[in-house]
């Protein structure tokens, strides 16, 4: 299917194809008019759950996918509902678990292993892909009705009226949250006003922490290595001893910054003052800095005031930077808002980290 906004048509797009039954979560096949459709269940295996744990820690997140195409959950018939989702395996697994005891078709779009909302923003969970996948699955032969239940958060990538026009299927937007799906299905596809609103409760922010932490460490560890190395070279005494004693405070400042920006800011988001995430990050950074440096006993030690100021600048810049980066994971910040925030915050963050590093080097040199 080629639409006006089409860039290029991938090879083989739209030609008939069912997903392989040779995937670890496929239980067997279901007969349909177009052939044997892979059947899945609602029970997650230990292997599935292990995969979920790992991707929550940012491990293997780039290749946690299921093959796109049509699947059967339970024993669906020509009258069963068709639910559309993304080919991120975490999404797919949670969907089939949510639909325990139901007989439905699941149409998995090729979103390159990205969740529905992010993929919709990128356009891979999109009109063209959906039209191709409907055609490739011969969905019009598999079911007798002409309705697709699509997650509401898929809407940024889709034009429902285009799907209707080109494929003849009506898109029915389901609830924002998967957990509301059973109620939505039982109520004749009616979503309450509450089901249409995306909130960002503590529980949802909490599950993001491991990925946030891993990404923070990825950027922070090289900086810690840099401080240790430089302290070893510039500081007094043997290399290892200087690296550990002189390098410890700025390294701790980096850790405090990551803790504030990637853990405290996300968790306490609504309660930290300020609208800008960079401000929220810096405020958390200030608090965490004094807690960490007092608790470690470093603040009570014999360090110069320029050295102390340099640690504070390092923590504040890093906390502010990572706090700001959390806008990307939040559910309510806008492109124009984030752009405005970044243009204001980045010069301050950059100045802060550079000034902190220079001040620290000078304090070690002269100390």
């Amino acid at each position, binding site marked *: 299917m080629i639409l006006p906004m089409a860039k290029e048509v991938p090879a083989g797009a739209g030609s008939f194809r069912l997903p392989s039954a040779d995937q670890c979560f496929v239980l067997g096949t279901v007969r349909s008019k177009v052939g044997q459709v892979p059947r899945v269940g609602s029970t997650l295996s230990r292997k599935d759950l292990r995969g979920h744990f790992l991707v929550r820690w940012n491990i293997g997140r780039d290749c946690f996918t299921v093959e796109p195409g049509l699947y059967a959950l339970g024993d669906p018939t020509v009258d069963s509902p068709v639910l559309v989702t993304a080919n991120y395996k975490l999404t797919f697994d949670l969907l089939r678990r949510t639909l325990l005891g139901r007989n439905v078709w699941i149409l998995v779009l090729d979103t390159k292993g990205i969740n529905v909302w992010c993929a919709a923003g*990128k356009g891979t969970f999109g009109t063209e892909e959906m039209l191709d996948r409907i055609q490739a699955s011969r969905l019009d032969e598999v079911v007798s009705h002409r309705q697709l239940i699509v997650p509401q958060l898929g809407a940024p990538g889709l034009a429902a009226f285009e799907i209707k026009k080109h494929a003849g299927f009506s898109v029915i937007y389901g609830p924002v949250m998967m957990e509301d799906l059973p109620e939505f299905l039982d109520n004749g596809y009616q979503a309450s006003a509450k089901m249409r609103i995306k909130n960002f409760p503590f529980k949802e922010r909490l599950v993001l922490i491991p990925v946030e932490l891993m990404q923070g460490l990825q950027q922070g560890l090289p900086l810690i290595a840099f401080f240790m190395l430089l302290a070893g070279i510039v500081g007094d005494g043997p290399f290892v001893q200087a690296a550990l004693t002189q390098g410890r405070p700025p390294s701790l400042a980096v850790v405090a910054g990551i803790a504030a920006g990637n853990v405290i800011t996300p968790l306490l988001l609504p309660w930290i003052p300020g609208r800008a995430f960079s401000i929220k990050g810096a405020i958390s950074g200030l608090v965490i800095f004094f807690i960490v440096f007092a608790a470690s006993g470093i603040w009570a030690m014999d360090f110069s005031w320029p050295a102390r100021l340099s640690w504070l600048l390092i923590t504040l810049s890093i906390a502010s930077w990572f706090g700001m980066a959390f*806008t990307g994971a939040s559910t309510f910040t806008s*492109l124009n*808002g984030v752009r405005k925030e970044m243009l204001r915050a980045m010069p301050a963050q950059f100045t802060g980290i550079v000034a902190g590093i220079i001040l620290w080097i000078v304090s070690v040199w002269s100390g």
Partner: protein
Amino acid sequence: MSELCYFEDVVSLECDRDKCIGCGMCAVVCPHGVFTVEDKKALMIARNLCMECGACMQNCPVGAITVEAGEGCVRAIINELLGIDGPCC
């Protein structure tokens, strides 16, 4: 807890009520309750809650809604500022 709010008066969302046919799709797809339908026309009742996801614009059959939709993540904006077409989150 009331709904979280980012900056005010910063989003690019616009709705042309003359073009609007009152189908209500914008009110259905918006995850922040920005739209309602009044007198058979879409009405923005919470514009500051808009996150510029673009769902309303995509699903408006008459093109009455415009918004600069895009990925509001740090990496994407840095790429944009540097003028490169790099990888995003």
